[in-house]
C-alpha cells in the first residue's frame, strides 16, 4: 500500500540547540487512520508546525501526499494545502459570526468552489453530524459542536489527508468518543487518510494504526 505520510529521521532543534525532535521516523498508509503517541506536548506542537510548514526541520525528510514539504515552493505548498492536505489545529478558532454553513462556504470560497458545491456541503454536514445544525453559530454552542464544525471545515475541500492536532482537547470521554467515531466514519466513507497527533485514546481503537514514537530520552518535553 502506498504511503501518504513519510517522516524519516526528522530532527528539529530549538534555541541553544535544545532538542525538540530528533530522528523521528514513521509512515502512514493511504486510507488509514493513524495516531502517533508517546510524544510530549512540545513535540506534538513542533511536529504539527513542521507538517504545516510553519517551521523548517533541521534534518530529515517530511513527505506528505507524495510531496517533500521541506523543499516545497510556496506556490506548491499553497496548492497542496488547497487540494490535498488539511490541518485541524488544536483549539481551532471558529468564525465569530458565521453559521456552520457559512463557515463551510467561506472555506470553499478560498480553496475553490467545486461544480457540485451543494452536494459537497450536504455530504460534509452529514458526515460530521451537522446536517440539522447548519444554521447554528458554532462559537455559541458546546465544545463538541465546535470540534465537529472544525472537522467539517477541514474536510469540505475534499483533501486526501487530514492532520489533527489534539482534536479531543476540552472534551469529556463520551464527547471524545463521538468525535472519534465521526473521524472513523469520514475515513471509511471518503477514504480520507487521517493522522492524529494526540496522546489520548478515545473509543474503539479497532482499525486505527497506533504508532509509538521512536524518540529517545534526550528529547525534551
Amino acid at each position, binding site marked *: 500500500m502506498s504511503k501518504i505520510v513519510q517522516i524519516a529521521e526528522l530532527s528539529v532543534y530549538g534555541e541553544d540547540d535544545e532538542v525538540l525532535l530528533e530522528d523521528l521516523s514513521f509512515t502512514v498508509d493511504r486510507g488509514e487512520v493513524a495516531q502517533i503517541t508517546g510524544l510530549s506536548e512540545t513535540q506534538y*506542537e513542533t511536529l504539527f508546525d513542521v507538517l504545516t510548514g510553519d517551521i523548517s526541520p533541521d534534518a530529515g525528510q517530511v513527505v506528505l501526499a507524495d510531496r517533500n514539504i521541506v523543499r516545497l515552493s*510556496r506556490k506548491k505548498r499553497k496548492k497542496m494545502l*488547497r487540494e490535498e492536505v488539511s*490541518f485541524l*489545529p488544536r483549539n481551532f*478558532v471558529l468564525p465569530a459570526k*458565521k453559521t456552520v454553513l457559512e463557515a463551510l462556504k467561506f472555506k470553499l470560497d*478560498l480553496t475553490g468552489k467545486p461544480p457540485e458545491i451543494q452536494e459537497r456541503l450536504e455530504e460534509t454536514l452529514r458526515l460530521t453530524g451537522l446536517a440539522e445544525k447548519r444554521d447554528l453559530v458554532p462559537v455559541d454552542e458546546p465544545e463538541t459542536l465546535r470540534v465537529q464544525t472544525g472537522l467539517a471545515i477541514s474536510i469540505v*475541500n475534499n483533501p486526501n489527508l487530514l492532520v489533527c492536532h489534539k482534536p479531543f482537547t476540552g472534551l469529556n470521554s463520551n464527547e471524545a468518543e463521538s468525535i472519534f467515531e465521526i473521524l472513523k466514519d469520514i475515513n471509511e466513507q471518503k477514504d480520507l487518510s487521517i493522522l492524529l497527533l494526540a496522546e489520548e485514546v478515545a473509543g474503539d481503537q479497532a482499525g486505527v494504526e497506533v504508532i509509538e514514537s521512536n524518540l529517545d530520552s534526550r528529547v525534551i518535553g
Partner: protein
Amino acid sequence: MRTMNKSFYFIKEFAGLMDRKKWAKAIGALLTVFGFIVLVYVLLLPKDQPLQVSTGLEKFPDNHKTLAQVRPGLSTTDIDSLYLSLRRLESVDNLILVLSEEVKQGILNVPPEVSKDSDFFLIKTSDRDQLLEELKTQPNITMVTRLSGMTQRSSKEPLSLWLKIVILVIGVIIAGTGFYLLRSVSQDLLRNWRGELQIIKYSGLSKLSVKVPLVLLSTAIGLFGAVLSILLLFGLSTWANSGIWIAEKLPGLLNNTSLLIITIWSLLLGTVLGFLGSLSSLRVVDETWKLENNQNNT
C-alpha cells in the same frame, strides 16, 4: 487578478463586521486626514492671491470696485456706445470692460447674484453715490453691485513662525491620531476575524492576501478624506464673495488651473496618508498571524 478578487471578497467580509464603534473609528480616521490636508492648505497655500480679481486682471489699476452688469444680447457697437456714454459720466474715473467669456474663464469672479452670461464694466469712482445716480440713466446697465472687500486683495501678513510651528504640531498630532485610528480599526476587524484568519492560513493563503484589502481600505479612507478637503476648498472658492468669514480668511483659489493642481496634490496626499496609516495596520496582521501559532502552541 486572483489576489484582487480575494481582496474585494475580504473587503466585503470586513464590511459585514463593521459595527457602530468601528464606523466611528473609521470616520474619525477619515476626518483626521481631512483635517490634516486642510492644515496643509493653511500652511502652504499662497496668501497674497487676489480673492476676486485674478492675476489676469492685475495689470489694471486698483479701486475698480463697482461692477455694472451689461444687458445681455447687446451688439458690439451698442457696447462701444455704452462704454463711451459711461466714460462721459462725471463720477466715473475709469472703467474696464470684462467680457462674459473672461468671466467664465475665471479671470473675474463675479458675485453669485449676477449672471455669468453677461459682459461687465468694472468702474473706478471717487463718488459712489453720484455714480449710482448717474447709472440709473443708463438703460443698458441692468444691475450694479459692489465687489466686497478690496478689488485686489492686499497681501496678507504671512503666518508667524510660531503659528506655523503650532499648526505643524497640530498637523502631526492629527496625522498620528489618524494612524492610530486606522490601526485600531484593523485591530478590531482582525480580532473579530480570527476564525476566518485561521481558515485562511490553513487554506494555503498568504498573509499578503489579508494585508492587501487592509491597505486598500486604509488608502480609500485617506482618499475620501482628501475628497472632503477638496470639496471644502471648492465650496470656499465658490462662496468667496458671499461674505462668509472663513472664505475670506482662507487663501483664494479662483483660478481653475490652481484648483486642478491643488486637487491632484490633495488626492495624492490623502492616498499617501492612508497608505502610510495602513502600514501600521499591516503589523497587526503579522501579530495576529503569529498569535495563531502561539495560541495553537499553548
